Each structure stands twice: as C-alpha cells, then as structure tokens.
C-alpha cells in the first residue's frame, strides 16, 4: 500500500502543473493590468513599471520565468503591496487560516461522528425527526448566515464573545469562526454516520456476530464501526474542500487577517503573483488533504484500493 500511496503523491505534481498553467492563462487573459489604478502614471511610467516586473515579455517567456521561480520556491513579489513578497504575505496569514481550518475539522469530527453513532443506536421516532431536521438545517444555513447570527447572539446580546477581529494569542476570537465553520460539517457528518451505521447494523455479518453470542458493545466496536465509517472517510474529501472555501467567507465575516482576503483582493488588483501563489498553495493543500482522506479510506477498507 505504501507504494500506491507514493505513486499517488507523485501524481500530484502533474495535476498541480496543470492547475498552475490554467490559472496563469485565465488570469493573464483577463482585461486590465496591475498598474491601471496608479495615480498620475503616464504611459511611459507604466511601461517602465511593466518592464521592471517583467510584464512586457511575451506570455510564454513570463510563464517559464514563473515556473523557474517556483522550482526555487520563489512565488515572486506582490505587485500591489510592494514591500512584500508573496511568500511573506501568505506566510503571515497562513498560520491563522490553517488553525481555523484544522480546528473546524477537528471539532466537526469530534462532535459529528459520536452524535451520529448515538443517533443510530438510540432509535426513537422523535429522535429521527429531530436528526432529519438538524440535517436539513445544516444544509440550508450557509456559513455567512450562521456567522453573523452567532455573532448577534453571542457577541451582541450575550456579550460572551467578541463579535469580530483578532488579537494574537487570544483564542476567544477564534471561537465563533471555528463554530461557524464546523457546524454545517458536523451536521453532515452526523447524518452520514447515522445512516451508514444503521445500514451496516442490518448487514448479515453483524447478525451472525450477534448469533455467535458476542456482546452488543463488541459487535459495535470490533465489527460494525470500521465499515460504517467508510462513507464518512470518503466524504472527507468534499468536506475539506468545504472548509477551504468556507474559511474564505468566515474570515470575511469575522475580519480575521488570514490568507482568504488575498485571493479576492489580489484578483481585483490584478496582483498576478499573489493570486497565483494563493491558487497554488490552496490547490496543493486541497490535493494533499484529499490524498490523506483517500489513504484513510484505504486503511478502513483496503478493498477500495483495487479500483
């Protein structure tokens, strides 16, 4: 299995390359340039600026120069925030965004899966309806609705938590953002776990385990849980994508200085290296995390590897 995993990791690189190329093409094809908003810039000055940043070269040349920079780990300078390189900008914001994302995923897993298991075991029609309702709400309440609502309740009315903003080393500023990001995910995971566990518990091999006289607890832990978690593990891929994109909105809602704002602002400013850098970093992250989720699937049920 290790060989398969390594082969998958190696396959990431051509995919990443395609992502880089496609993004490069899209961004460059767009109208407008990074220096259009310069105050009082005559065409000569603008041409000079473009020459300094190598933007006057033909596109294929620029593309190759960018790739060579990437190979050295250099994402280039930010065209808008001239004192910083893209690596510095992303490096400044990434710890916060990463913390937000990881905490949200962790919280969702810790609350979602056990509650799903509990819901599957405690069979009552009222609980079923409640679970279905929570699940439906979880899909219908997007993060940019939950966020302000939570801030309204906990920040404005109850005054327990800050409404927005960030102070280094003050985790209370992260509570609402993490909660906002984790809630829809937890609801989805809970629903998924419950449905999957219910189906596994109906399977013949569980029936034979019980017939052999195994206690209910052992049946659950040793036999039913692993296959039941398989759909959950394969859902982790889309879940990660959800967290990545959701963090953009959550950072916007709560004013967190993470990396999210760089993408939007960079695209508006036509700050090419910044946008490219963001796409690469987030693309690579998504691909890597998806791979980890796939590996988790493979660990839970090695059969899925032979597709």
């Amino acid at each position, binding site marked *: 299995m290790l060989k398969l995993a390594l082969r998958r990791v190696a396959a990431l690189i051509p995919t990443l390359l395609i992502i880089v190329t496609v993004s490069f093409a899209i*961004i460059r094809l767009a109208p407008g340039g990074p220096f259009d908003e310069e105050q009082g810039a005559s065409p000569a000055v603008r041409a000079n600026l473009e020459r300094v940043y190598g933007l006057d070269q033909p596109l294929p040349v620029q593309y190759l120069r960018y790739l060579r920079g990437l190979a050295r780990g250099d994402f280039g300078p930010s065209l808008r925030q001239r004192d910083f390189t893209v690596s510095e900008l992303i490096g400044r914001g990434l710890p916060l965004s990463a913390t937000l994302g990881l905490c949200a995923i962790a919280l969702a897993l810790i609350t979602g899966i056990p509650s799903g298991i509990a819901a599957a075991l405690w069979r009552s029609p009222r609980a079923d309806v409640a679970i279905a309702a929570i699940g439906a709400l979880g899909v219908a309440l*997007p993060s940019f609705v939950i966020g*302000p609502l939570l*801030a309204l309740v906990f920040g404005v009315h109850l005054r327990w938590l800050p409404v927005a903003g960030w102070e280094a080393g003050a985790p209370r500023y992260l509570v609402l953002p993490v909660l906002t990001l984790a809630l829809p995910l937890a609801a989805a995971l809970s629903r998924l776990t419950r449905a999957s566990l219910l189906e596994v518990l109906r399977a013949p091999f569980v029936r034979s385990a019980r017939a052999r006289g195994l206690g209910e607890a052992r049946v659950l832990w040793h036999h039913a849980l692993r296959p039941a978690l398989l759909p959950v593990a394969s859902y982790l891929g889309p879940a990660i994508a959800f967290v990545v994109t959701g963090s953009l909105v959550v950072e916007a*809602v709560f004013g967190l200085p993470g990396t999210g704002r760089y993408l*939007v602002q960079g695209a508006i400013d036509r700050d090419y290296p910044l946008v490219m850098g963001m796409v690469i970093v987030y693309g690579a992250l*998504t691909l890597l995390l*998806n791979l980890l989720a796939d590996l988790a699937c493979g660990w839970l049920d090695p059969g899925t590897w032979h597709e």
Partner: protein
Amino acid sequence: MSSRRGLWSDARRRLRRDRAARTALVLLAVMALAALIAPVFSPWSYDTLDWQHLARPPGTAAAHWLGTDRLGRDLLVRTLYGVRLSLVLAILASAVSLLIGVLWGAVAGLAGGRIDGAMMRFVDVLYSLPYLFVVIILTTLFTRGSLIVLALALAAVGWLTTARIVRTQTLALKRREFLEAARALGVPPHAILLRHIVPNVLGPVAVYATLIVPQMILFESFLSFLGLGVQEPQASLGNLIFAGAQEMESAPWMLLVPAVALVLLLLSLNLLGDGLRDAFDPRER
C-alpha cells in the same frame, strides 16, 4: 415505443406520499409566486429611497411591512427581488451546467477508450480545484456586476458532477440491447447520442438538478456576500445579508429578513430534491 410508465409513475406515487417534499413544493411555489408578483402590490420599488423612514423596524412605518434599510429602501420588496434574482440566476446557471455536463458525460461514455479517459481526466483535474476559487477569479476578472457573466461563471463549476453522473449512466446503458440494435441498424453516433442516451440518463440528472439549484443559489450568495456577485443597488440575498450583517447591532431585522428568506428557499429546494431522490431510488432511506 418503450414504456417508461413503470419508473415515472412509481416515483410520482412515492413523491405524493412524502409529506416533507409536498410541504417543500408548496413553500417553494408560494415563494416563487410572491417573488414574481408581490412587488407589484407594494408602493415601493427596490431602489426607492424613503427619506421619512430610514432604518425602521418591521411594522412601524407606513406600508413598510418588513421595515427599511439604512437608505430607506423597503426591505420586503428588496428581499423579494433578491429571491427572484437568486432563483433566476440559479436556474439559468443550472440549466447551462446541466447542458454542458450531460453532453460531455454522454460523449465521453459513448466514445470510450482514450477519449473517455482524456475527457474524464480533465474533469478530475478541474474537480480538484476549490470551486469557489475558480468562480472568484472568473467573476473578478471579467466584468463585475454583469449577471450573464456571473451565471456563466457559476455554471462553469457546476457541470463537473453532472458529467460524471452522466458518464457512469452512459457506460451502463452502452451494454443494453437496444443500443446494440441501434448500432447494428446503422444509426449514426450523434443520433444514438441524442435519441437514445440522453433521454435515458435524464432520470438521475433530474434528481441532481434539484440539488444543484440550491447549490448555485449558495455560490451566488457567497459571491455577492464577498462583493463579487450582484452589485448595489440591485438586491440579491447575498448582498442583502452582507449589508444586514454590518448593521446587525442596531438593526437586526436587516439581517434576519433576508437570512430567513434564504434559509427557507434553500430548505425547500433541498427537501424537494431529497423527496425526488427518494422517489426515484427508495433504497436510500
């Protein structure tokens, strides 16, 4: 003429018994009707500024049933406009993405071999891109505020799953006898595609369609919330919620009214989609 009565009438019967889906359908119809017709009954249009009543809570000002926003614009009318805009954009984007997805998937499935491999590889690569990124980049780059561009950008990411579903269905259909017969009779490939494959994959696609519309509404609201989608003074549920979130401490109704509208819309679409899916494939439950 093959009889498809079995699947569709069964599904219809199951759908009729599903109370949640029925409620959802009614709710959806009410909202859509209200969004289309109700603004006619109100003295306010979505961008009329009522200087006498700035930021008034619901029910306190003349004919402003749900209050006004910071600029004195009637919130009820703006929310209804938002529902209308979101629905239209979502349906348009869904239609385009379904069209592309069905054609792409059907062609890939029918062609098979390396063409199929190449086409689906393309889909896989695009799949690995965080969709919001692509949409953000597309909308910021090509005219902010143009609704057509917005719809196209939304459609650009929606077609991927449709393509996958259709391709799997096509592959399953390819081995059926009626296709062999058609090929043996010399029916040209494009006719096989249009006359045999597409009508038969529409079942699962229809179910997916009802789930893709709320997703499009969600994307569009995300974008409008970030300031990239629908621009002021036009009202979309996304930018209404954004404006409301800023005023939340002094005027919570500005947030709650569009938020509730969005939640109801998404809820009913999702319940309807769930109902349709259960109707076509009751094993899920």
